[in-house]
């Protein structure tokens, strides 16, 4: 597709369930980012990939959060044993490396609600 695609758009999980959120970046984009956006807040950085290499995961809030991008294209953010505080919109963004295009292209996000 032309833009960054995320699925599912909406996910409701019971506390303790595992969830997986998928991101399809723009074809040819080397860099891929995951952000978490709580209601009424700005996006908070989670992790960053360049191709398949995870260069920064300093924003992952706990070891229940895990991200991968095994072939340098599609990425999956996995949250194990979900908690209510994990409820947020998870945004994926991609870009050409090191701001050569000057911008991140964001998907519409996956809204996770943990009951």
């Amino acid at each position, binding site marked *: 597709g032309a833009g960054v695609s995320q699925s599912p758009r909406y996910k409701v999980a019971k506390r303790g369930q595992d969830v997986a959120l998928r991101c399809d970046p723009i074809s040819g984009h080397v860099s891929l*980012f995951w952000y978490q956006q709580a209601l009424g*807040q*700005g*996006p908070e950085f989670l992790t960053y990939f360049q191709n398949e290499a995870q260069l920064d995961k300093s*924003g992952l809030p706990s070891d229940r959060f895990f991200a991968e991008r095994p072939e340098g294209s599609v990425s999956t953010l996995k949250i194990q044993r979900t908690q209510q505080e994990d409820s947020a919109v998870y945004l994926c963004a991609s870009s050409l490396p090191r*701001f050569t295009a*000057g911008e*991140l292209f964001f998907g519409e*996000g996956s809204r996770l609600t943990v009951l």
Partner: protein
Amino acid sequence: AQKVTQAQTEISVVEKEDVTLDCVYETRDTTYYLFWYKQPPSGELVFLIRRNSFDEQNEISGRYSWNFQKSTSSFNFTITASQVVDSAVYFCALANRDDKIIFGKGTRLHILP
């Protein structure tokens, strides 16, 4: 530490008025990048502008203009002759060389008809 502060949580103006959104940043780096993004009700963040720390020239794009002042660590955004379609949440953001972008908490802008 890097930080972006958008002190205005919410602003309402009547259509055709000018409005300025404030952004103050903190960084110890001499090389950094500043951004503004728009988040309409659909939720998708839309890139508006990127400036690097060595280019303090102000920029104008149609009804939008940006004022970058290193002396006050500010990167303010002005919309002239506002329109209802400008209603959105606007985020100022900062990045250094490691590509990680730090966002402010955003300013929700309401343009009233």
